[in-house]
């Protein structure tokens, strides 16, 4: 489903975040990205979602060379990818459910249908009772779950999560990891960057260990 061949990424300013990365990820896999801060995990995820473009090499997603996508085509790629951001990127000018509905709104789904689907996914992440709350009033863990709900509401085949448990208590982190396992079990491909070694041990999956822009694959 995803393949990197000889991919390097150099940011303007000269720092090479990824160097000669070669990797293939099959549909339905559960992948963990580990490694020190600055190793290139976020860059790897951004290349998949065409948020950044490779300096060299080819990143392909579902057969599309995403590094070469036109500006007009990028939105359609992103609609098939659920993104969970470390900093959530929630909108504080609207309620929790309005945040979750946004991807469906963008895809042009009918309002009543999209509200129904948003409620279903809020229920799944345990936030249905807070649907009308402003995200500001939610705890860090709740905000992260809200972000996950938004990433999942359009039922993407691929979920990318950048340190989704990075700033959460251990209890919340375990909840979220369990949620990810459930999605994996229904066939979603997940790529999750994390520092949380215990979670990895508990869930299994394949580990890509990053070190200064290189991948050293570690199988559990």
């Amino acid at each position: 489903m995803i393949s990197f061949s000889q991919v390097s990424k150099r940011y303007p300013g000269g720092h090479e975040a990824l160097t000669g990365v070669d990797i293939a990820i099959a549909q339905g896999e559960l992948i963990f990205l580990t490694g020190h801060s600055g190793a290139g995990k976020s860059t790897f995820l951004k290349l998949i979602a065409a948020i950044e473009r490779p300096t060299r090499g080819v990143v392909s997603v579902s057969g599309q060379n995403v590094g070469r996508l036109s500006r007009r085509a990028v939105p359609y790629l992103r609609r098939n990818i659920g993104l969970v951001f470390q900093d959530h990127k929630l909108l504080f000018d609207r309620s929790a459910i309005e945040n979750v509905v946004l991807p469906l709104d963008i895809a042009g789904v009918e309002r009543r249908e999209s509200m129904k689907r948003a409620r279903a996914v809020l229920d799944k992440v345990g936030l249905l009772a807070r649907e009308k709350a402003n995200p500001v009033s939610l705890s860090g863990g709740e905000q992260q779950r809200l972000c996950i709900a938004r990433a999942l509401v359009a039922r993407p085949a691929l979920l990318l999560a950048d340190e989704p448990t990075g700033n959460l208590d251990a209890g919340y982190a375990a909840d979220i990891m369990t949620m990810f396992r459930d999605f994996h079990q229904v066939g979603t491909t997940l790529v999750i960057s994390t520092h949380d070694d215990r979670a990895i041990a508990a869930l299994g999956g394949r580990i890509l260990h990053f070190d200064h822009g290189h991948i050293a694959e570690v199988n559990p």
Partner: protein
Amino acid sequence: MTGWLRHQKRAFIVALRHLSTQPLSTLLTALAMGVALSLPAGLYLALDNLGRLAGELPARPEISIYLAADASAAQKAALAERLKKPDIEGARFVTRDQALAALASEQGLADLAAGLAENPLPDAWIVRPRDATRDALIPLHDELAVLPGVAETQLDSAWAERLQALLAIGRTGVWLLAALFAVALAAISSNAIRAQVLARRDEILVSRLIGATDRYVRRPFLYLGAVQGLLGGFAAATVLAGAGAILRGPIEQLATLYGSAWRLHPPAAPEILALFVFTALFSWLGAWGSVMRTLRRVEGPG
């Protein structure tokens, strides 16, 4: 409902929400647009009224024919005969004595007339042509001018033509002003929309990350521009209605003093509609340019 229509509806609702969350800046922008527009629109209405007024005045042109002092009786008779033809509605003969008497009765000219040793004025015909258009007047005038016994002729349509020429200049001026103010309108809208785009920076960036197209992001701002323009048009209409209400009394009083029942003529429905279309269109255009530029600034070249 099709997806396209659903997107339009959503964008429209979002635009209204943006406007209503910033009522003060919405109001001020509408006011700026309205005041700017009331100038060309007001001038247009003033000229329209002036044109109507000119149309009601007896602006029929006249041709004055001055007879030569040595014109023979036969020549005079032939001329009188010519003036009975159907291309002439009526003709009035003014003898040189009548002309002198008229001159003497003019304020300030009595002394001059009294001081004259003899009457220098010729006999004259004042002719009213049936067809008052310029194309008919000139050949008639030229024909009459060369008849035997005619010393001089004068085509007296000058003041009507001058008024028409002034009105034409005025109308051109209105269009020039309108073009200028269209630019001003687009600039005001552009500025307002730029502020809105910058205020929605987070929302735009997040939407882009989860698959929003350019059009999806742009659309509410374009509606915002159009609606803001409509509000500007409404403000302009209000300013003009206010000015009309203030001016109506004095103008109609003035007309009464001149024995006229003339009334101020308000704009017709198509003209009001045109104002709104104009404001919405140019405000939309301003929004378009502004959104494109500001989005590029917000999102980077990506």
